[in-house]
């Protein structure tokens, strides 16, 4: 789960990271008032869960309240990379002397939390990694001790900092690590950490991504979720405990397990079709989940056929079959459907489908091929093929 910049700044500030003042505004009037309150030149920044805001026109400099109002008017209500902008952050325009990149990430290779920093801040870190990898400094937290001050100092020296900046950087890094661990983050990024006119280091932009699996320990953070920044059907899916990612194709997929779901999408593509979505109904899929999944898939108007592929382990095919039969009575829209059940209680599942006059395919290849045929309009699909269509 992503936080907005203003939420991330507040979290950092609570942990003592120096963050310049700033106010969130949901209207041009509020932005104007905020600029007046802050005084001087301000920067107006779209609050949106997307990178590259600057290039997309989501960040504007304003000389005073009137200009801030104008900037907010231009930004609010637009969409950046498809995401709606409902709020802007108004902050003083900083006199930037130097820009540093610093982040903590969950590091799979090192199996711990790692710091990543670069003296080339203010730009996309992935670009820096590609063009000048030697400028990137890393340090790994030992799980017994957590990140230690000596590590932060060493990074500071490697970044070429000196004097009071070493202590300041170390202090900020220790606090960012605390933000990471105390909130079960998977990314805490400050870019840039800037030396401003006063000589002080300040976090001018902040990004925090939380580990969804850790949210049960942080209810107050879970409440910060801004579902306006997510696809509504993905939000509905998440509420039903379903992993759903909307894509651009025509074949809706319902699969149990992320790996099998991806493999199923790959098979659809291999047979010439385009998957409309990734959907993993999760471990112990119940009838309710199947119904919910089907409705989510069908809420996508592009979907012309549905492929269900269930290989039961924890999920039991009989339960899934019941779910399918039940769901068909409640779905909002009817499209052709192909089903394949395998694994735990598969035979019983197939029997249940059969009793409801639904037949099932026997392999992944077969079910994928059938789904593609349904969409490419091969209406002459031979009757003996185990295709079950729920079309009227």
């Amino acid at each position, binding site marked *: 789960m992503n936080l907005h910049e203003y939420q991330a700044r507040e979290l950092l500030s609570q942990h003592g990271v120096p963050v310049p003042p700033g106010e969130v505004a949901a209207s041009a009037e509020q932005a104007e008032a905020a600029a007046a309150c802050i005084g001087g030149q301000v920067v107006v920044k779209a609050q949106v869960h997307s990178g590259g805001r600057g290039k997309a026109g989501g960040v504007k400099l304003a000389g005073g309240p009137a200009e801030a109002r104008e900037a907010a008017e231009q930004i609010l209500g637009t969409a950046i990379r498809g995401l709606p902008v409902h709020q802007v952050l108004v902050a003083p325009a900083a006199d930037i002397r130097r820009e540093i990149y610093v982040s903590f990430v*969950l590091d*799979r*290779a090192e*199996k*711990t*939390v790692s710091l990543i920093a670069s003296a080339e801040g203010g730009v996309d870190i*992935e670009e820096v*990694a590609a063009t000048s990898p030697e400028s990137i400094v890393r340090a790994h937290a030992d*799980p*017994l001790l957590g990140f230690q001050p000596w590590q932060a100092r060493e990074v500071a020296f490697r970044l070429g900092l000196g004097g009071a900046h070493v202590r300041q950087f170390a202090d900020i890094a220790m606090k960012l690590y605390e933000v990471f*661990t105390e909130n*079960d983050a*998977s990314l805490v990024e400050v870019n840039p950490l800037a030396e401003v006119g006063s000589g002080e280091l300040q976090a001018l932009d902040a990004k925090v991504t939380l*580990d969804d*699996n*850790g949210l*049960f*320990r942080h209810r107050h953070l879970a409440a910060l979720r801004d579902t306006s920044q997510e696809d509504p059907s993905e939000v509905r899916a998440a509420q039903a405990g379903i*992993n759903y*990612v909307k*894509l651009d194709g025509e074949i809706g997929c319902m*699969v*149990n*397990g*992320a*790996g*099998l*779901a*991806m*493999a199923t*999408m*790959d*098979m*659809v*593509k*291999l047979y010439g079709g385009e*998957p409309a979505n*990734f959907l*993993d109904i*999760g*471990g*112990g899929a119940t009838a309710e989940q199947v119904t919910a999944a089907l409705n989510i898939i069908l809420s996508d108007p592009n979907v012309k056929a549905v492929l269900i592929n*269930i*290989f*039961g*382990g*924890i*999920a039991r095919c009989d339960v899934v079959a019941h779910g399918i039969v039940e769901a068909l009575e409640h779905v909002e829209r009817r499209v052709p459907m192909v089903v394949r059940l*395998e*694994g*735990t209680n598969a035979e019983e599942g197939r029997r249940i489908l059969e009793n409801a006059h639904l037949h099932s395919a026997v*392999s*992944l*290849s077969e079910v994928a091929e059938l789904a593609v045929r349904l969409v490419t309009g091969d209406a002459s699909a031979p009757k003996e093929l185990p295709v079950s269509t729920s079309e009227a």
Partner: protein
Amino acid sequence: MSILVDRNTRLLVQGITGREGEFHTTQMVEYGTQVVAGVTPGGGGKAVAGAPVYNTVHEAVAETGANTSIIFVPAPFAPDAVYEAAANGIELIVCITEGIPALDEVKMYRYVREQGARLLGPNCPGVTTVGEAKVGIIPGNIHIPGPVGLVSRSGTLTYEAVAALTAAQIGQSTVVGIGGDPVPGTSFVDTLRMFEEDAETRGVVLIGEIGGTAEEEAAEYITEMSKPVVGFIAGRTAPPGRRMGHAGAIISGGRGTAEEKVRALEAANVQVATTPAEIADFVDLALAAG
């Protein structure tokens, strides 16, 4: 013989009285696994599928000599269960639970190693040594015994691959699901190393997916292996920047793509299949050549 579990595995089920615990205990017993004990705090004195239930792992180990544990405990309490198993001398801990916070996984990884034990998972389907012991949730009836080891980051895709091998009459030695979480207790490399040393295994199937660098690390080790390896990578069509489910499967910053992984594996002389059925074809060829 075979790897991780076998006839001599004495299994303890943690969370045995829960819905999943009870269901899969029955399934494992039916497969022939020696389920010697269960643990549910406060459930001591009960029995599930013939296995006595204890309040603590300490008691269960002392009374039954359990040496392997499988965990069906909800995510907030699963790390505690893993620690209890590791502290009490369990040698192999198979954690089925999904949804464990990554910071807990970092500590689980470290602690279990320090105790000299092995963790499989979390968020994995477990391990089956065909015809000997099933410690997990992989459907038992999809296997036939044989010379091919299989290791996978994925759950149900593992079953799909096994079913494809079985359909082609290619039997399996041990099937291992290492799980798709960010910090798995056992890696591809760990498992490949065990297969390399296992007399019952003549070839290995590796099922990977997008995200991370586990397949690239595996490819590096495979260059040192004497046994043939066939690969499969899920997520060739996944768009970058979108997380495909709980599997930690995400292509970010141009890293972790299926192309990269296929390239790395092929550079290590691994034939990479594009469909589950093709896995079986490639294995057939590899075994025939070997």
